[in-house]
């Protein structure tokens, strides 16, 4: 990989946008600091100004007042065109050019920046590998119409990463994908994000997606006001106000369980593999098997479906231990009550 730049911070400094003819601002004095390398999800109902906030960064929309800085440089210090070439941009429906092949789509910004052909070719192949489209020779000459929705979105991400921008803006990039493809592409993007460390601002209307993807979540409410900004667990545990609580939904307790994997609480020592002795095997009889990579929420669903009192945890084919129903619903890793640990 030739990923060198890690990322730059993005700072919203009382960023305000009022569209012409509108009585109230679409985004009202947003203060937000996205740390270098962080993935922040902007969520909220329509009219919350989340897409406006995103498009202010690459100046598809102009600020009414306030400022936005990338690193320590204001976005208004350079021309909008130059600025955009240093920002990766991926959108819903991928926005791929239907008349360009996969290779040409990914090469769009490098070609504009005047990279030589050899460098572009190397970079394109490298990116296709990164987003999981290999062997690359199969994919390079294809047109977007020849790809599935998930493949198009992967190419869209590769294109956004092409010129190695320090900052990525993603506007509901997975919004149009079917649930199964969506989960797969989310997982891949998380892996890519960990690998390349781009500062990412990610707009979604799907709170579950935000909980899964984000280091921190910024919840915007109608009128373009920031309702809460914090880590997913924090937001789910302590909603700042009624709006946030309502937005997170009645299932927010369950959503919080999606932040922890079964493997984490097993290895945390809440249950011990040695505990599976002669008498323990009686109590675990009929318990379903779960993978260590499953979230507590998923495992709970499996346990509930089996009408059991717990589950047996496996990792890579070998038995890791058990988790009881109580461990699942009140995990010490994500919860407060520590007395729940089995005696």
């Amino acid at each position, binding site marked *: 990989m030739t990923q060198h730049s890690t990322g730059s911070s993005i700072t919203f400094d009382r960023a305000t946008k009022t569209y012409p003819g509108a009585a109230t601002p679409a985004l009202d004095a947003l203060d937000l600091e996205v740390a270098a390398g962080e993935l922040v999800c902007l969520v909220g109902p329509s009219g919350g100004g989340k897409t406006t906030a995103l498009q202010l960064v690459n100046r598809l929309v102009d600020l009414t007042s306030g400022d936005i800085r990338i690193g320590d440089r204001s976005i208004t210090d350079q021309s909008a065109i*130059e600025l955009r*070439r240093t920002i990766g941009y991926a959108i819903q429906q991928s926005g791929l050019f*239907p008349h360009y092949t996969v290779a040409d789509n990914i090469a769009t910004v490098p070609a504009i920046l005047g990279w030589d052909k050899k460098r572009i070719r190397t970079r394109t192949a490298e990116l296709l590998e990164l987003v999981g489209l290999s062997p690359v020779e199969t994919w390079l000459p*294809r047109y977007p119409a020849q790809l599935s929705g998930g493949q198009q979105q992967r190419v869209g991400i590769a294109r956004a990463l092409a010129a190695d921008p320090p900052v990525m803006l993603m506007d509901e990039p997975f919004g149009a994908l079917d649930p199964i493809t969506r989960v797969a592409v989310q997982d891949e993007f998380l892996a890519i994000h960990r690998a390349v460390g781009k500062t990412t601002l990610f707009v979604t209307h799907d709170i579950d997606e935000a909980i899964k993807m984000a280091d921190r979540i910024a919840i915007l409410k109608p009128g373009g006001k920031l309702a809460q900004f914090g880590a997913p667990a924090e937001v789910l545990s302590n909603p700042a106000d009624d709006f946030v609580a309502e937005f997170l939904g009645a299932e927010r307790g369950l959503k919080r369980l999606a932040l922890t994997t079964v493997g984490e609480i097993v290895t945390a020592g809440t249950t011990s593999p040695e505990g599976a002795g002669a008498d323990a095997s009686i109590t675990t009889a009929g318990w379903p098997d779960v993978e260590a990579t499953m979230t507590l929420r998923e495992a709970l669903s499996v346990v509930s479906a089996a009408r059991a009192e717990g589950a047996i945890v496996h990792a890579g084919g070998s038995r890791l231990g058990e988790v009881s129903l109580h461990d699942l619903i009140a995990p010490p890793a994500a919860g407060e009550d520590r007395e729940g640990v089995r005696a």
Partner: protein
Amino acid sequence: MSDFAPPGDPAIPDYGQASDCVINNGAFCTDWFISQWSTVFWPPLLSHIIMVAIAVSIGFVIAFCAGLLAYRKKWLAGPIGMAATFLYTLPPLALFQLLVPFTGLSLLTVEIALVCFTLVIIFQAVLVGLSGVPDDVRRAATGMGLDRNQLLFKVELPLALPSIISGVRIATVLTVSITTIAAFVVDDGLGSPIIKAVSSPFNTQFVGAGALAVLLAFALDGLLVLLGRVLTPWTKARS
């Protein structure tokens, strides 16, 4: 029989061999068509092609520029569209009549009229093609830092090509047809043998020239379809 007319000398001049088909003025005499190709059919066909090519080329340039202008300045789309539609609704013969006092019985008169009829079709095709570029594609292109010209030449125009080419196809076929009427102004094009044969009347000549006009329309249309395939390979690409 008088001495002045020796036996063997025909009283009626011999105009040469004519087939039964020609003598009976059959619907279409292939032998006559072939023997008269180089004098009766080929020269008008060639001048027909030239007149169509000039009209469509000039019409394309004007309508293309007007289309771009209307796309950039939306308020111009209405007035330009209305002017072009007005020109299109004029009866061709009336338009020739209108122009003759100014430009005479000339090729110029013919071309001005022909160009007028191509404008609205190509103009609309350009405008529809450009407006049909998906918003997400335009937004992605802008967001990635393409400037206005790059957006137009790298993204918008290529994506408008299928629409533009179908507009040019319709305009071309229409112009092939209208150009036959140009024979009322200049003694050129396939309309010329048709008009003469209709008044004689001699079937093979107007059937032959008429058929050539139809075939020419098909041929030019086919060429433009091929051109479209070459220029827009992505439209045929399916997994």
